[in-house]
Protein backbone atom coordinates (compact mmCIF):
# COMPACT_ATOMS: atom_id res chain seq x y z
CA UNK A 1 0.00 0.00 0.00
CA UNK A 2 2.98 2.28 0.21
CA UNK A 3 2.51 3.07 -3.45
CA UNK A 4 -0.99 4.34 -2.82
CA UNK A 5 0.19 6.51 0.02
CA UNK A 6 3.03 8.06 -1.93
CA UNK A 7 2.98 11.73 -2.76
CA UNK A 8 3.25 10.90 -6.44
CA UNK A 9 0.06 8.85 -6.38
CA UNK A 10 -1.80 11.60 -4.57
CA UNK A 11 -0.60 14.26 -6.97
CA UNK A 12 -1.62 12.04 -9.83
CA UNK A 13 -5.10 11.10 -8.64
CA UNK A 14 -6.11 14.39 -7.07
CA UNK A 15 -6.82 16.14 -10.39
CA UNK A 16 -8.60 13.10 -11.80
CA UNK A 17 -11.21 12.86 -9.05
CA UNK A 18 -11.26 15.58 -6.43
CA UNK A 19 -9.98 18.52 -8.43
CA UNK A 20 -11.03 17.48 -11.89
CA UNK A 21 -10.29 20.35 -14.27
CA UNK A 22 -13.62 20.05 -16.08
CA UNK A 23 -16.23 18.65 -13.76
CA UNK A 24 -14.99 20.39 -10.60
CA UNK A 25 -13.05 23.45 -11.69
CA UNK A 26 -15.04 23.93 -14.93
CA UNK A 27 -12.01 24.83 -17.02
CA UNK A 28 -11.30 23.90 -20.61
CA UNK A 29 -14.96 23.85 -21.54
CA UNK A 30 -14.43 25.23 -25.08
CA UNK A 31 -12.57 22.24 -26.39
CA UNK A 32 -14.88 19.92 -24.47
CA UNK A 33 -17.78 21.54 -26.34
CA UNK A 34 -16.15 21.45 -29.71
CA UNK A 35 -14.56 18.07 -30.28
CA UNK A 36 -16.71 15.70 -28.25
CA UNK A 37 -19.27 14.81 -30.89
CA UNK A 38 -17.23 11.67 -31.57
CA UNK A 39 -15.05 9.46 -29.43
CA UNK A 40 -12.00 9.00 -31.64
CA UNK A 41 -11.11 12.69 -31.97
CA UNK A 42 -11.68 13.04 -28.24
CA UNK A 43 -9.17 10.29 -27.48
CA UNK A 44 -6.61 11.90 -29.78
CA UNK A 45 -7.21 15.27 -28.19
CA UNK A 46 -6.82 13.73 -24.76
CA UNK A 47 -3.48 12.22 -25.77
CA UNK A 48 -2.26 15.47 -27.30
CA UNK A 49 -3.44 17.41 -24.29
CA UNK A 50 -1.84 15.02 -21.80
CA UNK A 51 1.44 15.07 -23.68
CA UNK A 52 1.49 18.84 -23.85
CA UNK A 53 0.51 19.46 -20.25
CA UNK A 54 2.96 16.88 -18.89
CA UNK A 55 5.89 18.16 -20.95
CA UNK A 56 5.10 21.79 -20.26
CA UNK A 57 4.84 21.11 -16.55
CA UNK A 58 8.18 19.32 -16.56
CA UNK A 59 9.99 21.94 -18.66
CA UNK A 60 8.63 24.86 -16.69
CA UNK A 61 9.40 23.11 -13.45
CA UNK A 62 13.00 22.54 -14.55
CA UNK A 63 13.33 26.23 -15.36
CA UNK A 64 11.38 27.46 -12.35
CA UNK A 65 14.37 28.84 -10.53
CA UNK A 66 15.72 30.81 -13.47
CA UNK A 67 12.47 32.31 -14.81
CA UNK A 68 12.20 35.96 -13.73
CA UNK A 69 8.81 36.26 -12.10
CA UNK A 70 7.68 39.36 -14.00
CA UNK A 71 7.96 37.68 -17.41
CA UNK A 72 6.99 34.19 -16.31
CA UNK A 73 3.70 34.20 -18.21
CA UNK A 74 5.50 34.92 -21.47
CA UNK A 75 8.02 32.17 -20.82
CA UNK A 76 5.24 29.74 -20.01
CA UNK A 77 3.41 30.70 -23.18
CA UNK A 78 6.50 30.17 -25.30
CA UNK A 79 7.01 26.72 -23.85
CA UNK A 80 3.38 25.71 -24.23
CA UNK A 81 3.10 27.16 -27.72
CA UNK A 82 6.16 25.27 -28.92
CA UNK A 83 4.78 22.03 -27.54
CA UNK A 84 1.38 22.63 -29.08
CA UNK A 85 2.90 23.30 -32.49
CA UNK A 86 4.90 20.12 -32.12
CA UNK A 87 1.77 18.14 -31.28
CA UNK A 88 -0.11 19.71 -34.15
CA UNK A 89 2.65 18.90 -36.65
CA UNK A 90 2.89 15.32 -35.41
CA UNK A 91 -0.85 14.82 -35.81
CA UNK A 92 -0.75 16.33 -39.29
CA UNK A 93 2.09 14.04 -40.25
CA UNK A 94 0.74 10.77 -38.90
CA UNK A 95 -3.02 11.15 -38.35
CA UNK A 96 -4.07 13.58 -41.01
CA UNK A 97 -7.78 12.73 -41.06
CA UNK A 98 -8.24 13.11 -37.34
CA UNK A 99 -6.14 16.24 -37.39
CA UNK A 100 -8.57 17.65 -39.92
CA UNK A 101 -11.53 16.64 -37.75
CA UNK A 102 -9.98 18.38 -34.76
CA UNK A 103 -9.22 21.40 -36.97
CA UNK A 104 -8.14 24.38 -34.91
CA UNK A 105 -8.67 22.72 -31.59
CA UNK A 106 -5.23 21.18 -31.48
CA UNK A 107 -3.75 24.60 -32.00
CA UNK A 108 -6.15 25.95 -29.44
CA UNK A 109 -4.77 23.65 -26.75
CA UNK A 110 -2.53 26.61 -26.05
CA UNK A 111 -5.46 28.71 -24.94
CA UNK A 112 -6.71 25.92 -22.72
CA UNK A 113 -6.64 27.44 -19.28
CA UNK A 114 -5.86 24.09 -17.67
CA UNK A 115 -2.28 24.03 -19.00
CA UNK A 116 -1.47 27.59 -18.07
CA UNK A 117 -3.20 27.12 -14.74
CA UNK A 118 -1.16 24.06 -13.84
CA UNK A 119 2.06 25.77 -14.92
CA UNK A 120 1.25 28.73 -12.71
CA UNK A 121 -0.21 26.87 -9.79
CA UNK A 122 1.92 23.76 -9.66
CA UNK A 123 4.99 23.61 -11.86
CA UNK A 124 6.44 26.91 -10.70
CA UNK A 125 6.67 25.70 -7.13
CA UNK A 126 7.30 21.97 -7.40
CA UNK A 127 9.97 19.60 -8.60
CA UNK A 128 9.95 18.29 -12.18
CA UNK A 129 9.17 14.79 -10.95
CA UNK A 130 6.04 15.87 -9.10
CA UNK A 131 5.07 18.24 -11.90
CA UNK A 132 5.11 15.34 -14.30
CA UNK A 133 2.61 13.45 -12.16
CA UNK A 134 0.46 16.52 -11.83
CA UNK A 135 0.49 17.05 -15.61
CA UNK A 136 -0.40 13.41 -16.25
CA UNK A 137 -3.19 13.55 -13.72
CA UNK A 138 -4.68 16.71 -15.16
CA UNK A 139 -4.40 15.47 -18.73
CA UNK A 140 -6.15 12.23 -17.84
CA UNK A 141 -8.70 13.98 -15.66
CA UNK A 142 -9.55 16.21 -18.60
CA UNK A 143 -9.48 13.24 -20.95
CA UNK A 144 -11.74 11.07 -18.85
CA UNK A 145 -14.45 13.72 -18.82
CA UNK A 146 -14.30 14.45 -22.54
CA UNK A 147 -14.34 10.75 -23.37
CA UNK A 148 -17.37 10.12 -21.16
CA UNK A 149 -19.07 13.13 -22.71
CA UNK A 150 -18.10 12.03 -26.22
CA UNK A 151 -19.37 8.52 -25.52
CA UNK A 152 -22.84 9.77 -24.67
CA UNK A 153 -22.86 12.41 -27.36
CA UNK A 154 -21.92 9.96 -30.07
CA UNK A 155 -24.24 7.25 -28.77
CA UNK A 156 -27.29 9.47 -28.27
CA UNK A 157 -26.62 12.03 -30.96
CA UNK A 158 -25.51 9.83 -33.84
CA UNK A 159 -26.39 6.35 -32.64
CA UNK A 160 -22.81 5.18 -33.13
CA UNK A 161 -19.62 4.49 -31.18
CA UNK A 162 -16.12 4.91 -32.59
CA UNK A 163 -17.79 5.78 -35.87
CA UNK A 164 -19.61 2.43 -36.07
CA UNK A 165 -23.38 2.42 -35.89
CA UNK A 166 -24.46 0.63 -32.72
CA UNK A 167 -28.15 1.47 -32.53
CA UNK A 168 -29.68 -1.24 -34.72
CA UNK A 169 -31.89 -0.32 -37.64
CA UNK A 170 -35.01 -1.98 -36.27
CA UNK A 171 -35.01 0.40 -33.33
CA UNK A 172 -35.01 3.31 -35.75
CA UNK A 173 -37.82 1.56 -37.60
CA UNK A 174 -39.77 1.45 -34.35
CA UNK A 175 -39.64 5.22 -34.20
CA UNK A 176 -36.46 5.92 -32.29
CA UNK A 177 -34.84 9.22 -33.24
CA UNK A 178 -31.35 10.45 -32.48
CA UNK A 179 -31.19 13.28 -29.99
CA UNK A 180 -30.31 16.38 -31.97
CA UNK A 181 -29.42 18.35 -28.86
CA UNK A 182 -26.47 16.07 -28.21
CA UNK A 183 -24.76 17.34 -31.34
CA UNK A 184 -25.22 20.92 -30.19
CA UNK A 185 -23.29 22.71 -27.48
CA UNK A 186 -26.10 22.67 -24.88
CA UNK A 187 -25.91 18.88 -24.81
CA UNK A 188 -22.38 19.10 -23.44
CA UNK A 189 -23.38 21.47 -20.69
CA UNK A 190 -26.19 19.15 -19.69
CA UNK A 191 -23.90 16.11 -19.74
CA UNK A 192 -21.10 17.79 -17.80
CA UNK A 193 -23.64 19.07 -15.30
CA UNK A 194 -25.10 15.61 -14.81
CA UNK A 195 -21.60 14.15 -14.53
CA UNK A 196 -20.67 16.70 -11.87
CA UNK A 197 -23.90 15.86 -10.05
CA UNK A 198 -23.09 12.14 -10.13
CA UNK A 199 -19.54 12.74 -8.93
CA UNK A 200 -20.70 14.94 -6.09
CA UNK A 201 -23.34 12.43 -5.07
CA UNK A 202 -20.78 9.63 -5.02
CA UNK A 203 -18.29 11.74 -3.08
CA UNK A 204 -20.97 12.73 -0.58
CA UNK A 205 -21.83 9.09 -0.09
CA UNK A 206 -18.18 8.22 0.51
CA UNK A 207 -18.02 11.06 3.00
CA UNK A 208 -15.07 12.59 1.20
CA UNK A 209 -16.64 15.79 0.07
Amino acid at each position, binding site marked *: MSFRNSKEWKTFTEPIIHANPISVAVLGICSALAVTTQIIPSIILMLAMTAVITLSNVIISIMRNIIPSNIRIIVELVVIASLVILADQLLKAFLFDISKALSVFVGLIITNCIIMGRAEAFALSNTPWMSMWDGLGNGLGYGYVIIVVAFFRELLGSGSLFGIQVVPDFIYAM*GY*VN*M*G*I*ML*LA*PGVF*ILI*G*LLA*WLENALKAKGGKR
Partner: protein
Amino acid sequence: MNLEQWFKDNEEKFSKSGPNGKWHESYHAIYTFFYNNHIKTNTKVHIRDGVDTKRYMVLVIIALMPALFFGIFNAGYQARLSVGLSVDDYFAVILAGASLVLPLVAVSYGVGLGIEFFFATIRGHAINEGFLVSGLLYPLILPVTIPLWQAGLGIAFGVIVGKEVFGGTGRNFLNPALTARCFVFFTYPSQMSGEIWTGVLNAKDQIVDGFSTATPLAVVAYAEKGSDGMKLLEDAGFGISNLIIGLVPGSVGETSVIAILLGAGLLIFTGVGSWRTMVSALVGALLMGFLFNIYGDKDSAMLGLPPLWHLAMGSFAFAVVFMATDPVSSPTTNTAKLIYGFLIGCMGMIIRVMNPAYPEGWMLAILLMNVFAPLIDYLVMSYKTSKRIPNLV
Protein backbone atom coordinates in the same frame (compact mmCIF):
# COMPACT_ATOMS: atom_id res chain seq x y z
CA MET B 1 -64.09 1.00 5.81
CA ASN B 2 -63.85 4.42 4.35
CA LEU B 3 -60.75 6.03 2.98
CA GLU B 4 -60.16 8.45 5.81
CA GLN B 5 -60.35 5.59 8.28
CA TRP B 6 -57.74 3.72 6.30
CA PHE B 7 -55.40 6.68 6.39
CA LYS B 8 -55.95 7.06 10.14
CA ASP B 9 -55.32 3.38 10.79
CA ASN B 10 -52.10 3.42 8.89
CA GLU B 11 -50.79 6.73 10.12
CA GLU B 12 -48.61 5.06 12.72
CA LYS B 13 -47.06 2.72 10.20
CA PHE B 14 -46.14 5.56 7.89
CA SER B 15 -44.79 7.94 10.49
CA LYS B 16 -41.14 8.78 10.10
CA SER B 17 -40.08 6.35 12.80
CA GLY B 18 -42.61 3.66 11.87
CA PRO B 19 -41.95 0.47 9.89
CA ASN B 20 -42.82 2.21 6.60
CA GLY B 21 -41.03 5.43 7.46
CA LYS B 22 -39.35 5.49 4.10
CA TRP B 23 -42.72 6.11 2.48
CA HIS B 24 -43.74 8.84 4.89
CA GLU B 25 -43.62 11.61 2.31
CA SER B 26 -45.57 9.65 -0.28
CA TYR B 27 -48.19 8.78 2.32
CA HIS B 28 -48.47 12.39 3.39
CA ALA B 29 -48.76 13.62 -0.18
CA ILE B 30 -51.58 11.23 -1.00
CA TYR B 31 -53.34 11.99 2.29
CA THR B 32 -53.32 15.72 1.73
CA PHE B 33 -54.49 15.14 -1.80
CA PHE B 34 -57.76 13.84 -0.42
CA TYR B 35 -58.09 15.55 2.93
CA ASN B 36 -57.20 18.78 4.59
CA ASN B 37 -53.69 18.87 5.90
CA HIS B 38 -53.98 18.15 9.60
CA ILE B 39 -50.46 19.27 10.38
CA LYS B 40 -50.74 22.88 11.44
CA THR B 41 -48.11 25.42 12.24
CA ASN B 42 -47.25 25.25 15.93
CA THR B 43 -45.93 28.72 16.50
CA LYS B 44 -47.93 31.93 16.60
CA VAL B 45 -46.99 33.97 13.59
CA HIS B 46 -48.61 32.27 10.65
CA ILE B 47 -52.05 32.79 9.28
CA ARG B 48 -53.81 29.49 9.68
CA ASP B 49 -55.38 28.56 6.43
CA GLY B 50 -56.27 25.36 4.64
CA VAL B 51 -54.85 26.70 1.41
CA ASP B 52 -51.49 25.02 1.08
CA THR B 53 -49.49 24.69 -2.11
CA LYS B 54 -51.72 21.86 -3.19
CA ARG B 55 -54.95 23.83 -2.99
CA TYR B 56 -53.23 26.77 -4.63
CA MET B 57 -52.08 24.61 -7.49
CA VAL B 58 -55.48 23.00 -7.88
CA LEU B 59 -56.87 26.43 -8.75
CA VAL B 60 -54.45 26.58 -11.67
CA ILE B 61 -55.59 23.12 -12.74
CA ILE B 62 -59.19 24.32 -12.75
CA ALA B 63 -58.15 27.36 -14.75
CA LEU B 64 -56.52 25.05 -17.26
CA MET B 65 -59.66 22.97 -17.76
CA PRO B 66 -61.24 25.09 -20.52
CA ALA B 67 -58.00 25.00 -22.50
CA LEU B 68 -57.67 21.27 -21.96
CA PHE B 69 -61.23 20.47 -23.01
CA PHE B 70 -61.04 22.75 -25.98
CA GLY B 71 -57.68 21.21 -26.85
CA ILE B 72 -59.22 17.74 -26.80
CA PHE B 73 -62.10 18.88 -28.97
CA ASN B 74 -59.82 20.69 -31.38
CA ALA B 75 -57.40 17.76 -31.69
CA GLY B 76 -60.29 15.52 -32.66
CA TYR B 77 -61.75 18.16 -34.95
CA GLN B 78 -58.50 18.63 -36.85
CA ALA B 79 -57.79 14.92 -37.01
CA ARG B 80 -61.24 14.07 -38.40
CA LEU B 81 -61.19 16.99 -40.78
CA SER B 82 -57.81 15.97 -42.16
CA VAL B 83 -59.05 12.57 -43.26
CA GLY B 84 -62.33 13.89 -44.58
CA LEU B 85 -64.59 12.57 -41.82
CA SER B 86 -67.59 14.56 -40.73
CA VAL B 87 -67.12 16.87 -37.75
CA ASP B 88 -70.82 17.31 -37.01
CA ASP B 89 -70.90 14.36 -34.65
CA TYR B 90 -69.47 16.03 -31.56
CA PHE B 91 -69.29 12.82 -29.61
CA ALA B 92 -67.05 11.21 -32.21
CA VAL B 93 -64.92 14.34 -32.40
CA ILE B 94 -64.37 14.42 -28.65
CA LEU B 95 -63.65 10.70 -28.61
CA ALA B 96 -61.05 11.12 -31.35
CA GLY B 97 -59.52 14.08 -29.54
CA ALA B 98 -59.41 12.25 -26.24
CA SER B 99 -57.65 9.31 -27.85
CA LEU B 100 -54.96 11.71 -29.04
CA VAL B 101 -54.57 14.00 -26.05
CA LEU B 102 -55.25 11.88 -22.97
CA PRO B 103 -52.29 9.54 -23.56
CA LEU B 104 -50.05 12.62 -23.55
CA VAL B 105 -51.53 13.78 -20.25
CA ALA B 106 -51.19 10.29 -18.79
CA VAL B 107 -47.56 10.01 -19.86
CA SER B 108 -46.76 13.42 -18.49
CA TYR B 109 -48.31 12.70 -15.10
CA GLY B 110 -47.09 9.13 -14.93
CA VAL B 111 -43.45 9.85 -15.71
CA GLY B 112 -43.31 13.16 -13.87
CA LEU B 113 -45.03 12.00 -10.69
CA GLY B 114 -42.95 8.83 -10.70
CA ILE B 115 -39.80 10.93 -10.65
CA GLU B 116 -41.23 13.31 -8.05
CA PHE B 117 -42.09 10.47 -5.68
CA PHE B 118 -38.72 8.85 -6.31
CA PHE B 119 -36.79 11.98 -5.38
CA ALA B 120 -39.00 12.74 -2.41
CA THR B 121 -38.51 9.24 -1.04
CA ILE B 122 -34.75 9.25 -1.56
CA ARG B 123 -34.21 12.73 -0.21
CA GLY B 124 -36.91 12.64 2.43
CA HIS B 125 -38.44 15.97 1.42
CA ALA B 126 -42.12 16.60 0.93
CA ILE B 127 -43.69 15.80 -2.42
CA ASN B 128 -43.76 18.93 -4.53
CA GLU B 129 -47.31 19.77 -5.45
CA GLY B 130 -46.04 22.13 -8.10
CA PHE B 131 -45.89 19.18 -10.39
CA LEU B 132 -49.65 18.86 -10.47
CA VAL B 133 -49.62 21.99 -12.61
CA SER B 134 -46.43 21.37 -14.57
CA GLY B 135 -47.71 17.91 -15.46
CA LEU B 136 -50.83 19.35 -17.04
CA LEU B 137 -49.19 22.40 -18.58
CA TYR B 138 -46.66 20.27 -20.38
CA PRO B 139 -49.00 18.19 -22.59
CA LEU B 140 -50.94 21.34 -23.40
CA ILE B 141 -47.89 22.94 -25.02
CA LEU B 142 -46.98 19.91 -27.10
CA PRO B 143 -48.20 19.15 -30.60
CA VAL B 144 -50.49 16.10 -30.62
CA THR B 145 -48.24 14.43 -33.15
CA ILE B 146 -45.34 14.00 -30.75
CA PRO B 147 -44.44 10.36 -30.01
CA LEU B 148 -45.25 9.46 -26.42
CA TRP B 149 -41.75 8.29 -25.55
CA GLN B 150 -40.37 11.66 -26.56
CA ALA B 151 -42.96 13.40 -24.42
CA GLY B 152 -42.01 11.16 -21.50
CA LEU B 153 -38.32 11.83 -21.95
CA GLY B 154 -39.00 15.54 -22.10
CA ILE B 155 -40.96 15.68 -18.86
CA ALA B 156 -38.34 13.53 -17.15
CA PHE B 157 -35.71 16.04 -18.19
CA GLY B 158 -37.89 18.96 -17.15
CA VAL B 159 -38.54 17.56 -13.69
CA ILE B 160 -34.99 16.40 -13.00
CA VAL B 161 -32.89 19.14 -14.55
CA GLY B 162 -35.46 21.92 -14.41
CA LYS B 163 -36.48 21.33 -10.82
CA GLU B 164 -35.13 18.51 -8.70
CA VAL B 165 -31.48 19.39 -9.28
CA PHE B 166 -32.12 22.70 -7.59
CA GLY B 167 -34.03 21.20 -4.69
CA GLY B 168 -37.63 20.94 -5.87
CA THR B 169 -40.61 23.26 -6.12
CA GLY B 170 -39.84 26.75 -4.94
CA ARG B 171 -36.16 26.51 -5.70
CA ASN B 172 -36.27 26.07 -9.44
CA PHE B 173 -35.41 29.17 -11.41
CA LEU B 174 -36.81 27.83 -14.68
CA ASN B 175 -40.35 26.82 -15.44
CA PRO B 176 -40.20 22.98 -15.46
CA ALA B 177 -42.88 22.54 -18.13
CA LEU B 178 -41.12 24.96 -20.45
CA THR B 179 -37.75 23.39 -19.72
CA ALA B 180 -39.23 20.06 -20.73
CA ARG B 181 -40.68 21.47 -23.93
CA CYS B 182 -37.45 23.30 -24.71
CA PHE B 183 -35.55 20.04 -24.33
CA VAL B 184 -37.90 18.22 -26.68
CA PHE B 185 -37.83 21.14 -29.09
CA PHE B 186 -34.06 21.08 -29.46
CA THR B 187 -33.63 17.35 -29.10
CA TYR B 188 -36.20 16.24 -31.65
CA PRO B 189 -36.48 19.25 -33.91
CA SER B 190 -38.15 17.35 -36.71
CA GLN B 191 -41.05 16.37 -34.43
CA MET B 192 -41.43 19.75 -32.82
CA SER B 193 -40.82 22.39 -35.44
CA GLY B 194 -42.41 20.54 -38.32
CA GLU B 195 -45.44 21.99 -39.96
CA ILE B 196 -47.69 18.97 -39.68
CA TRP B 197 -49.32 19.17 -36.31
CA THR B 198 -52.54 17.35 -36.94
CA GLY B 199 -52.94 14.11 -35.08
CA VAL B 200 -53.37 10.99 -37.17
CA LEU B 201 -56.18 8.73 -36.04
CA ASN B 202 -55.34 5.75 -38.17
CA ALA B 203 -52.05 5.16 -39.89
CA LYS B 204 -53.77 3.96 -43.06
CA ASP B 205 -55.84 7.09 -43.52
CA GLN B 206 -54.93 9.42 -46.34
CA ILE B 207 -55.02 13.13 -45.79
CA VAL B 208 -57.62 14.61 -48.09
CA ASP B 209 -56.64 17.00 -50.83
CA GLY B 210 -56.85 20.64 -50.00
CA PHE B 211 -56.58 20.16 -46.27
CA SER B 212 -53.79 22.28 -44.87
CA THR B 213 -52.10 20.89 -41.81
CA ALA B 214 -49.80 23.88 -41.44
CA THR B 215 -50.21 25.93 -38.30
CA PRO B 216 -51.15 29.59 -38.73
CA LEU B 217 -47.66 30.60 -37.66
CA ALA B 218 -46.06 28.36 -40.26
CA VAL B 219 -48.31 29.86 -42.92
CA VAL B 220 -46.98 33.33 -42.19
CA ALA B 221 -43.43 32.43 -41.24
CA TYR B 222 -42.71 30.49 -44.41
CA ALA B 223 -44.59 32.88 -46.71
CA GLU B 224 -42.86 34.19 -49.78
CA LYS B 225 -41.44 37.67 -49.71
CA GLY B 226 -43.86 40.39 -50.66
CA SER B 227 -46.96 38.47 -49.65
CA ASP B 228 -49.59 39.87 -47.34
CA GLY B 229 -49.69 37.91 -44.11
CA MET B 230 -53.26 38.77 -43.27
CA LYS B 231 -54.56 37.70 -46.65
CA LEU B 232 -52.56 34.47 -46.54
CA LEU B 233 -54.06 33.58 -43.19
CA GLU B 234 -57.58 34.30 -44.36
CA ASP B 235 -57.02 32.24 -47.50
CA ALA B 236 -55.81 29.33 -45.38
CA GLY B 237 -59.00 29.54 -43.33
CA PHE B 238 -57.42 31.25 -40.35
CA GLY B 239 -59.51 34.38 -40.12
CA ILE B 240 -59.20 36.44 -36.96
CA SER B 241 -62.41 35.08 -35.48
CA ASN B 242 -61.32 31.53 -36.13
CA LEU B 243 -57.94 32.21 -34.56
CA ILE B 244 -59.66 33.54 -31.45
CA ILE B 245 -62.08 30.65 -31.21
CA GLY B 246 -59.20 28.32 -31.90
CA LEU B 247 -60.30 25.63 -34.34
CA VAL B 248 -56.86 25.70 -35.96
CA PRO B 249 -53.86 23.36 -35.84
CA GLY B 250 -51.36 24.01 -33.10
CA SER B 251 -50.17 22.73 -29.74
CA VAL B 252 -52.93 21.07 -27.73
CA GLY B 253 -53.99 23.84 -25.38
CA GLU B 254 -52.73 26.95 -27.05
CA THR B 255 -55.15 27.47 -29.92
CA SER B 256 -58.24 28.93 -28.30
CA VAL B 257 -57.86 32.44 -26.95
CA ILE B 258 -61.36 32.29 -25.46
CA ALA B 259 -60.70 29.16 -23.43
CA ILE B 260 -57.44 30.63 -22.17
CA LEU B 261 -59.11 33.91 -21.23
CA LEU B 262 -61.62 31.97 -19.12
CA GLY B 263 -58.70 30.48 -17.24
CA ALA B 264 -57.01 33.86 -17.01
CA GLY B 265 -60.16 35.30 -15.44
CA LEU B 266 -60.12 32.67 -12.72
CA LEU B 267 -56.39 33.12 -12.09
CA ILE B 268 -56.73 36.88 -11.75
CA PHE B 269 -59.93 36.64 -9.68
CA THR B 270 -58.38 34.29 -7.16
CA GLY B 271 -55.07 36.12 -7.19
CA VAL B 272 -53.13 33.01 -8.14
CA GLY B 273 -51.80 34.46 -11.38
CA SER B 274 -50.41 37.96 -11.47
CA TRP B 275 -52.41 40.37 -13.64
CA ARG B 276 -49.36 42.61 -13.72
CA THR B 277 -47.33 40.05 -15.62
CA MET B 278 -50.17 39.33 -18.04
CA VAL B 279 -51.02 42.95 -18.76
CA SER B 280 -47.45 44.11 -19.14
CA ALA B 281 -46.66 41.19 -21.45
CA LEU B 282 -49.67 42.20 -23.53
CA VAL B 283 -48.44 45.77 -23.66
CA GLY B 284 -44.93 44.66 -24.57
CA ALA B 285 -46.15 42.44 -27.38
CA LEU B 286 -48.50 45.10 -28.75
CA LEU B 287 -45.78 47.73 -28.65
CA MET B 288 -43.29 45.51 -30.43
CA GLY B 289 -45.97 44.58 -32.97
CA PHE B 290 -46.68 48.24 -33.75
CA LEU B 291 -42.98 49.01 -34.01
CA PHE B 292 -42.51 46.17 -36.47
CA ASN B 293 -45.50 47.42 -38.45
CA ILE B 294 -44.13 50.93 -38.64
CA TYR B 295 -40.43 50.35 -39.14
CA GLY B 296 -40.32 46.81 -40.47
CA ASP B 297 -39.62 45.63 -43.97
CA LYS B 298 -42.92 46.01 -45.81
CA ASP B 299 -42.30 42.92 -47.93
CA SER B 300 -42.18 40.49 -45.03
CA ALA B 301 -45.47 38.78 -44.20
CA MET B 302 -44.53 38.44 -40.52
CA LEU B 303 -43.42 42.05 -40.06
CA GLY B 304 -46.49 43.48 -41.72
CA LEU B 305 -49.01 41.52 -39.69
CA PRO B 306 -51.08 43.72 -37.35
CA PRO B 307 -50.26 43.14 -33.67
CA LEU B 308 -53.77 41.94 -32.83
CA TRP B 309 -53.31 39.01 -35.17
CA HIS B 310 -50.07 38.18 -33.44
CA LEU B 311 -51.91 38.02 -30.14
CA ALA B 312 -54.54 35.67 -31.52
CA MET B 313 -52.30 33.13 -33.19
CA GLY B 314 -49.68 30.78 -31.85
CA SER B 315 -49.12 30.33 -28.17
CA PHE B 316 -49.02 33.96 -27.03
CA ALA B 317 -52.13 33.80 -24.85
CA PHE B 318 -51.30 30.47 -23.27
CA ALA B 319 -47.70 31.38 -22.60
CA VAL B 320 -48.50 34.71 -21.02
CA VAL B 321 -51.41 33.50 -18.90
CA PHE B 322 -50.07 30.18 -17.66
CA MET B 323 -46.33 30.16 -18.21
CA ALA B 324 -45.14 33.68 -17.48
CA THR B 325 -47.18 33.87 -14.26
CA ASP B 326 -45.59 30.80 -12.70
CA PRO B 327 -45.14 32.00 -9.10
CA VAL B 328 -41.79 30.31 -8.64
CA SER B 329 -39.86 31.32 -11.71
CA SER B 330 -41.28 34.82 -12.11
CA PRO B 331 -40.08 37.73 -9.96
CA THR B 332 -41.60 38.45 -6.55
CA THR B 333 -42.01 42.20 -6.35
CA ASN B 334 -44.85 43.91 -8.18
CA THR B 335 -42.67 46.38 -10.07
CA ALA B 336 -40.39 43.57 -11.14
CA LYS B 337 -43.42 41.66 -12.44
CA LEU B 338 -44.31 44.59 -14.66
CA ILE B 339 -40.80 44.80 -16.08
CA TYR B 340 -40.56 41.04 -16.45
CA GLY B 341 -43.87 40.76 -18.29
CA PHE B 342 -43.05 43.67 -20.57
CA LEU B 343 -39.71 42.18 -21.53
CA ILE B 344 -41.35 38.81 -22.19
CA GLY B 345 -43.79 40.52 -24.54
CA CYS B 346 -41.04 42.34 -26.43
CA MET B 347 -38.64 39.42 -26.54
CA GLY B 348 -41.21 36.84 -27.61
CA MET B 349 -42.35 39.08 -30.41
CA ILE B 350 -38.79 39.70 -31.59
CA ILE B 351 -38.02 35.98 -31.67
CA ARG B 352 -41.27 35.16 -33.44
CA VAL B 353 -40.96 37.84 -36.07
CA MET B 354 -37.25 38.28 -36.63
CA ASN B 355 -35.91 34.76 -36.29
CA PRO B 356 -36.83 32.55 -39.22
CA ALA B 357 -35.51 29.43 -37.48
CA TYR B 358 -38.07 29.55 -34.67
CA PRO B 359 -41.59 30.38 -35.77
CA GLU B 360 -42.64 30.72 -32.16
CA GLY B 361 -40.82 32.76 -29.55
CA TRP B 362 -42.68 32.65 -26.26
CA MET B 363 -41.04 29.55 -24.88
CA LEU B 364 -37.56 30.98 -25.39
CA ALA B 365 -38.59 34.45 -24.26
CA ILE B 366 -40.06 33.19 -20.99
CA LEU B 367 -37.14 30.92 -20.25
CA LEU B 368 -34.75 33.78 -20.90
CA MET B 369 -36.66 36.11 -18.62
CA ASN B 370 -36.91 33.36 -15.97
CA VAL B 371 -33.15 33.54 -15.79
CA PHE B 372 -33.28 37.30 -15.40
CA ALA B 373 -36.12 37.32 -12.85
CA PRO B 374 -33.90 37.29 -9.74
CA LEU B 375 -31.80 40.09 -11.21
CA ILE B 376 -34.86 42.26 -11.88
CA ASP B 377 -36.09 41.59 -8.35
CA TYR B 378 -32.72 42.54 -6.97
CA LEU B 379 -32.55 45.79 -8.94
CA VAL B 380 -36.08 46.79 -8.00
CA MET B 381 -35.48 46.09 -4.33
CA SER B 382 -32.16 47.87 -4.18
CA TYR B 383 -33.69 50.87 -5.97
CA LYS B 384 -36.53 50.98 -3.47
CA THR B 385 -34.32 50.63 -0.44
CA SER B 386 -32.10 53.41 -1.77
CA LYS B 387 -35.17 55.66 -1.86
CA ARG B 388 -35.99 55.08 1.78
CA ILE B 389 -35.54 57.82 4.28
CA PRO B 390 -32.98 56.49 6.72
CA ASN B 391 -34.23 55.86 10.25
CA LEU B 392 -31.11 57.33 11.74
CA VAL B 393 -29.52 60.42 10.39
